[in-house]
């Protein structure tokens, strides 16, 4: 099929001022590349934060007693928690369900005392669900069938001046408000690199928390998803299977400060992307407007020959479309290597934040990695094409306002 003359006209009009066209494409390409890089980085950073939060014991969502969202009390326990765990495990997303029972208590060795949140865990599951397990640098993590043992953070150990196999006295207030004590043997010391986190870690077997508090069972079931994008669907499905005795809370509800941090990051990125694209948009509009002004007589002639406004707008938009396509390809050429580098190597913030970053008891890797994938390709086209097509609208409007008679009168 022969190419339309209108398309040839649009293509050759762009080639009329090669340098201007190249500069415009460069501008679009660079702008798109910067935006691609930022979006990929922040997307990866958000995913890393969520992963870190989920694997630091928070999970992607939790099943908690119905009253928990209101009062957030650690003494609440899940009725029939093992049955609920089995129900969740039977769903598509419930492969990794970790039971926890939490209780504030005191650890003592000799005259030294430290206040911590004691976390009772199912040791077998926790080893797969919690990244703190991998930070046990001395000894080993808990074993399910060995009661009276604990893993503490390096900060806790230092403050109590204890080491592996040392006995610790743990004291908690039981369900009746009476103080209850027991001895725990240190089987592992975790060193996350975060002083804040290391000063709070105290994991014990679930049964030890049950006997210390006199409260049977787990306080929550923490669920980790293979695919965090399925969060909404998974939560919806689980909610549908539970009675009113239970509530399902997402990581955003459990850790609102982290969720708002991620949102702030995303908002800043959107704002920056918008600013970059507005600069690109204005640059393209200026170039396109100059091109229209130079061609006013040509448009007047085409209009005199019977070209309708719609077709003229079409030609202008086609020019914008071609600039956008070229800019998208250039944006991908510039942006993909950077995005790939950040996705594979990451940006190392350890020089600023130290070896580990912790926030709200979540351990983050200081090397932040971006996201990388096919989503960048349509994104590049979306960014560049929307900027160029939108920026062609005003020049196109200007072009169709050219009065053929007036433009021809200028000649005389």
């Amino acid at each position: 099929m022969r190419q339309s003359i209108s398309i040839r006209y649009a293509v050759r009009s762009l080639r009329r001022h090669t340098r201007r066209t190249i500069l415009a494409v460069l501008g679009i390409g660079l702008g798109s590349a910067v935006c691609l890089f930022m979006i990929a980085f922040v997307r990866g950073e958000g995913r890393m934060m969520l992963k870190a939060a989920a694997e630091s014991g928070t999970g992607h969502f939790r099943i908690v007693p119905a009253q928990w969202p209101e009062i957030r009390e650690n003494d609440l326990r899940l009725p029939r928690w093992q049955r609920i765990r089995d129900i969740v495990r039977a769903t598509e997303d419930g492969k990794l369900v970790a039971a926890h029972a939490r209780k504030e208590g005191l650890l003592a060795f000799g005259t030294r005392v430290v206040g911590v949140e004691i976390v009772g865990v199912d040791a077998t599951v926790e080893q797969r669900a919690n990244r703190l397990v991998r930070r046990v640098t001395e000894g080993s993590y808990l074993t399910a069938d060995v009661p009276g043992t604990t893993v503490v953070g390096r900060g806790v150990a230092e403050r109590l001046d204890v080491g592996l196999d040392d006995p610790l006295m743990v004291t908690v207030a039981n369900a009746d408000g009476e103080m209850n004590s027991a001895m725990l043997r240190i089987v592992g010391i975790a060193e996350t690199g975060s002083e804040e986190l290391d000063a709070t870690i105290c994991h014990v077997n679930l049964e030890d928390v049950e006997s210390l508090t006199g409260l049977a069972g787990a306080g929550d079931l923490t669920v980790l998803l293979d695919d965090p994008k399925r969060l909404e669907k998974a939560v919806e499905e689980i909610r549908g299977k539970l009675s009113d005795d239970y509530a399902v809370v997402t990581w955003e509800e459990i850790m609102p400060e982290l969720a708002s941090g991620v949102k702030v990051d995303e908002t800043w990125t959107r704002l920056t992307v918008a600013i970059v694209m507005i600069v690109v948009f204005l640059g393209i509009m200026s170039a396109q407007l100059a091109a229209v002004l130079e061609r006013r007589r040509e448009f007047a002639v085409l209009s005199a020959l019977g070209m309708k406004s719609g077709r003229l707008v079409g030609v202008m938009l086609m020019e914008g479309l071609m600039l956008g396509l070229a800019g998208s390809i250039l944006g991908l050429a510039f942006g993909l290597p950077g995005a790939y580098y950040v996705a594979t190597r990451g940006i190392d913030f350890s020089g600023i934040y130290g070896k580990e970053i912790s926030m709200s008891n979540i351990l983050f890797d200081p090397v932040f990695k971006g996201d990388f994938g096919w989503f960048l390709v349509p994104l590049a086209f979306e960014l560049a094409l929307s900027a160029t097509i939108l920026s062609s609208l005003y020049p196109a409007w200007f072009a169709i306002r050219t009065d053929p008679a007036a433009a021809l009168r200028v000649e005389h």
Partner: protein
Amino acid sequence: MTDETLVAADEVTKVYDTGKLEVHALTGVTLEVRKGDFMAIVGPSGSGKTTFLNLVGALDVPTSGRLEILGDDLAALSKRRRADMRLHSLGFVFQAYNLVPVLTARENVEFVLELQGVGTERAARATEILEQLGLGELADRRPNELSGGQQQRVAVARAVASKPKVVLADEPTANLDGENAEMLLAMMGRLNAEHGITFVFSTHDPRVVAHARRVVTLVDGRVAKDEVKPNGPQKED
């Protein structure tokens, strides 16, 4: 020439309001253009020649009076309908040729056909028109590779490609030397004689007047003289 009236102007006026003053370009033109006319509109600068051509070309509308083009009252037509009229029934030849510089001669002709909605055969038709007008070997050249005379002949080819009823030519020979002007006028004369295309020229050029069969003189925005030469064109090639 037949009695079929293509353009009928009745007391047509055109006033341009520049903000500070009003310019009365046409002050009451009454005139008919008939099928087959080969007509020159002459007159001193500012007499209203180009304004009249703009109106007959449906590029503008009169301030008052009635102007019928091909049976339609121009003032009653929308912009879109006027564009349709220009595309399907009128052809234009401009003083400065005004070919699209980035398109070849053939593509310039094809462009009009494409605007008319002609499909795959448009390239063949454009080639045929150029060959008929003796421009076949120039078909693939761009305007900057053509002389002024050649460009104007391509402009005529573009104007007649849409099979218009009337071709309006504004000072078509103003930028041409004697030989090229004669060649152009002879070509237009042939199109008029062989295809019955009506030509209306706005001109100062005595060479055009010499070829015209009807000469209308405008003075101060009015028809001062409408002269039909008794024995056809005074000058033949």
